């Protein structure tokens, strides 16, 4: 029954050999991995499989649609598809939050096709990417043909040729687009779509979990504008939303649409058991705490799963890593060029035709292993897989399960392995398997009333339709915003109506992915080129794009030659220097207003509004490998000021005196505690990269701390001169976590609400770390000198955190 093991070199000598049959299920392989690599596996988690729950096709599905489905082999509905059908028939707005590959699209295709084919009712579909949109259109065209339904489906996006647009507006029954196009190309020209909006019955929005944070806040406002325009044309479409598994699908859908939404979360689709392993690469240098790379482990695991006959998908965090891993696997499995490729790679940069071809081959089962970026995380259909390997933690529990969800057939067990990199977040998750097992997927959060975002969309809405007296925008009274817009000269107030008068097209100036148009582009000027290679948000720009900075794109270094601050451009050329740069930045914080506070162990925790000033004073040049500081450079950039919301922790002087031998120790402790709190907080609120920032300072902005060249915390005065820690009477070190956008983005309040839990987690993070004195996974990088100091930074941070922890 089992084949003899064959090594790669055999393949080229022997004639075509039948590949090993799939292992009975992924369970056997999971067991093997556990047995052989026990020391690297920190946690094992089995998600039990589910039996199928299905019902007969409901009576009220029109015959044409029944026939179309029958032609595709579908004659029953999974329970969640039937639940959705009935809920939509009842007139409810619905969000379907079942796992990947559970047949979510049929949930919305059914009611849409039924209404379009029998009543000429129209639908608008919104997808986050064109690839997904194209997939969906293909699906719709096939169903339409199979059932002879007469439903006309078109994509309408930036690529739609000009002469086709009018026809689509007039004749499209189902229009497939994306939020950016809706925002810039459809809503501002809504009169041309009058017939479409008058007959609009359904709005389908897929992958709504990806509309969170700043992007989600923008999309919520675009939806407000859409509903406003529908109201003008007398229609009130129903919303059907699809989401991956997040912790709050109903609340999130309701926040996006500002309607009551019915959530369908239980899937009736069958699945086999899923065996999940948490894998930490082995330590290769105990003194420095260095581990083997995640890449080496992913490579090893993928080789094992593919050899065992399991169809495998490896997710890598970057395009470069995709190429590297693909090469390693191809070296092993595709060494004979005469044979069809068993390993393929997949990422956004490839041509659409290539990607379609790879997807087809995957569905047909002719590829054994595929390496991809997050591009395959979203719903593109690639058939069933048996094993998924994650090279690095994707940043959230939700994304992790989304990716694992790619593996799984109806009856067979599948395997998922999460391989941690040395990133602090990865190390935290991998060392806390119970966190992973117990963590519900994060909550998706938006802040639709973020002032700067709201202003942009009220401006766009005023362009679309005048604002009448007492008219609200969503739930917001737009008065103040309209007054501001009148000051700017873009609207004119006449008898309580606000009409657009400027000669501009506001939607073009609003990017849905940033807060105000502040993003910088990085332009590669090597060899006379002028190509944009990256985009950097406004707040990160002074830290990474100052003149002289080494900027990395996919691990390729470039040097910034010129920064055009007002033009928002950084000009770089490829470089080959042997150092990297690190900005020396000072953050000065001042509390403007305290909204709320609560006890935190022997200290206090507060939530309120702060004024933040960030200044980059210069930068260090640090040689690779040796980490020597080989020089400094000046930076002259404007200070960045921010009025935003923040959460902060403090300890009273009495506690500080009893816990710490000196003020320097207390300060170092706060720096380390701040680092750990930042790590756990980002995890807790599913914050994207730069959205949440940390700082250690004093409430009145009198001094602020930074790490000096020796890694020790230092005080600086308001004018940045270094202060001695013994000067001055008051000493109230404070850790701040603040939203990195003017006006805040709604992160601070939930953090304050959960502050006890955060401190608890930070304590665990530091206590259980394997390092000696501190490391980037717990309190931040420490220098050798501090490891032998009286009390290591790790110990000091722990004291602060324990003092802040509930008794």
């Amino acid at each position, binding site marked *: 029954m089992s084949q003899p093991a064959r090594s790669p070199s055999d393949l080229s000598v022997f004639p075509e050999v039948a590949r090993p049959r799939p292992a009975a299920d992924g369970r056997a392989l999971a067991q093997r991995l556990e047995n052989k690599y026990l020391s690297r596996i920190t946690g094992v988690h089995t998600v039990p499989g589910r039996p199928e729950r299905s019902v007969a096709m409901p009576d009220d599905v029109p015959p044409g649609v029944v026939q179309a489905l029958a032609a595709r082999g579908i004659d029953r509905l999974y329970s969640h598809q039937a639940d959705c059908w009935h809920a939509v028939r009842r007139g409810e707005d619905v969000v379907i939050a079942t796992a990947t590959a559970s047949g979510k699209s049929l949930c919305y295709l059914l009611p849409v096709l039924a209404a379009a084919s029998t009543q000429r009712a129209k639908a608008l579909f919104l997808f986050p990417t064109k690839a997904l949109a194209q997939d969906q259109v293909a699906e719709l065209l096939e169903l339409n043909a199979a059932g002879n339904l007469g439903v006309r489906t078109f994509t309408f996006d930036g690529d739609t040729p000009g002469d086709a647009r009018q026809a689509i507006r007039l004749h499209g029954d189902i229009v497939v687009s994306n939020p950016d196009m809706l925002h810039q190309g459809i809503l501002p020209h809504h009169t041309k779509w009058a017939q479409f909006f008058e007959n609009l019955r359904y709005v389908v929005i897929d992958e709504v979990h990806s509309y969170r944070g700043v992007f989600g806040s923008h999309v919520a406002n675009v939806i407000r504008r859409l509903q406003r325009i529908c109201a003008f044309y007398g229609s009130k479409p129903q919303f059907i939303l699809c989401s991956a598994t997040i912790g709050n699908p109903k609340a999130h859908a309701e926040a996006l649409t500002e309607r009551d939404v019915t959530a369908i979360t239980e899937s009736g689709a069958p699945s086999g058991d899923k065996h999940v392993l948490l894998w930490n690469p082995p330590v290769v240098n105990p003194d420095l705490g260095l581990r083997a790379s995640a890449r080496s482990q992913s490579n090893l695991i993928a080789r094992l799963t593919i050899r065992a006959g399991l169809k495998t998908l490896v997710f890598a965090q970057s395009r470069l890593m995709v190429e590297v891993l693909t090469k390693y696997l191809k070296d092993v499995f595709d060494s004979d060029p005469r044979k069809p490729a068993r390993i393929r790679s997949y990422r956004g940069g490839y041509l659409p035709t290539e990607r379609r071809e790879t997807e087809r081959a995957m569905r047909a089962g002719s590829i054994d292993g595929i390496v991809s970026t997050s591009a395959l995380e979203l719903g593109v259909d690639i058939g069933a897989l048996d094993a998924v390997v994650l090279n690095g933690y994707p940043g959230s529990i939700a994304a992790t399960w989304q990716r694992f969800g790619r593996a799984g057939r109806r009856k067979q067990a599948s395997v998922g392995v999460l391989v941690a990199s040395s990133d602090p977040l990865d190390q935290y998750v991998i060392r806390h398997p119970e966190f992973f097992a117990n963590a519900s997927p994060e909550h998706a959060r938006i802040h639709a009333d973020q002032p700067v975002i709201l202003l942009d969309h009220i401006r766009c809405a005023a362009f679309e339709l005048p604002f009448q007296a007492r008219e609200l925008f969503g739930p917001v009274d737009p008065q103040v915003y309209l007054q501001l817009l009148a000051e700017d000269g873009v609207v004119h107030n006449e008898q309580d109506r606000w009409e657009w008068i400027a000669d501009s097209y506001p939607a073009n100036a609003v990017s849905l992915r940033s807060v105000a*148009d502040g993003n910088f582009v990085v332009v590669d000027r090597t060899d006379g080129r002028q190509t944009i290679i990256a985009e950097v948000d406004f707040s990160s720009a002074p830290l990474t794009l100052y003149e002289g900075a080494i900027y990395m794109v996919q691990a390729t270094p470039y040097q910034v030659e010129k920064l055009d601050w007002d033009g928002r451009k950084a000009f770089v050329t490829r470089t080959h220097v042997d150092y990297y740069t690190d900005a020396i930045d000072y953050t000065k914080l001042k509390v403007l207003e305290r909204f709320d506070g609560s006890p935190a162990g022997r200290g206090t925790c507060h939530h309120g509004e702060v004024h933040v000033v960030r200044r980059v004073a210069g930068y260090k040049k640090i040689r690779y490998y040796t980490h020597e500081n080989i020089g400094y450079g000046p930076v002259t950039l404007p200070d960045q000021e921010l009025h935003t919301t923040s959460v902060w922790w403090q300890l009273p002087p009495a506690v500080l005196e009893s816990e710490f031998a000196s003020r320097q120790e207390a300060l170092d402790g706060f720096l380390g505690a701040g680092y750990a709190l930042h790590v756990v907080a980002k995890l807790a609120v599913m914050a994207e990269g730069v959205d949440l920032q940390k700082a250690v300072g004093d409430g009145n902005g009198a001094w602020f701390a930074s790490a000096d060249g020796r890694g020790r915390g230092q005080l600086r005065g308001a004018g940045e001169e270094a202060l001695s820690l013994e000067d001055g009477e008051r000493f109230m070190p404070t850790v701040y976590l603040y939203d990195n956008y*003017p006006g805040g983005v709604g992160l601070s309040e939930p953090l304050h609400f959960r502050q006890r839990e955060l401190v608890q987690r930070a304590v665990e993070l530091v206590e259980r770390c394997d390092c000696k004195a501190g490391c980037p996974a717990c309190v931040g990088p420490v220098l050798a000198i501090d490891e032998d100091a009286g009390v290591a930074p790790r110990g000091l941070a722990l004291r602060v955190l324990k003092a802040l922890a509930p008794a």
Partner: protein
Amino acid sequence: MSLTLARLQQLKRQAGAAPSSQDLTPTRAATPAIDDLRRHLRRRAPSTDAVVRTVSNDRHVPGTEIAPGLRLVEARLPFAPPQDWIDGRFDRRDALDARQLMFFDTETTGLAGGSGTRAFMIGAADWFDGALRVRQLLITAMAGEAAMLDAFRQWLRPDTVLVSYNGKCYDAPLLATRFRLNRMGTPLVDRPHVDLLYPTRRRYRGRWENCRLATIERRALNVVREDDLPGSEAPAAWLSYLRGGSALNLRRVLAHNDRDVATLAELLLHLSQLSAMEMDEAAELP
């Protein structure tokens, strides 16, 4: 100075957007939905609304007010067509009945397109009673728009043929949008429309610096305008009047529009006669 507006301006600047150059003025209180701002608002005393407006003594606009915010200027030019039927071969058509033609041109608030651009003036000319009757509708307040569109619609008879310059791509779709926004149907659709830009281009492309109406008027028709306000300044002229400023430039816009519409009539005859002549000569050649 209002904290709320100042704050919004400030937040905008902090986010990296270019600051507005306008002065800040005091405003009314309230906006319950802005959580962090609300706390400031509670501490502020409400103040009166005082939007900055310029005030001018010269507010005279010609014509009569036929509805609130809508004025009509009417004039007659001693200019009749040579005959009732005009050769249509210049635009690849059958003969045009001079009495059915409606020459029209709009002045708008800009070129951005979309639902935010409106017409503040519609000039229309037709041959009536042996002369060219030029009628101009001008709104002096936003509230007059619906009445303006309605008045224009009533000038169109079932057999009216529209004549414009670039009206197919610009004026007609723009008016269609405004009709829609005012929930007034679409009287311009399915109507014969002679857009003189196309036959003009066919004849004159490359001969002079461009095919703009002003250029063609000067070069082909030998019309010289005095003190003409450039079309690009029309939006500002109207806006400034709307905000209480002088009507001087707005009157110049009326004159400019009046001349534009009259030129359309001249241009049509010019193109028609030239084409007719050329085609007749060509037909006579052995």
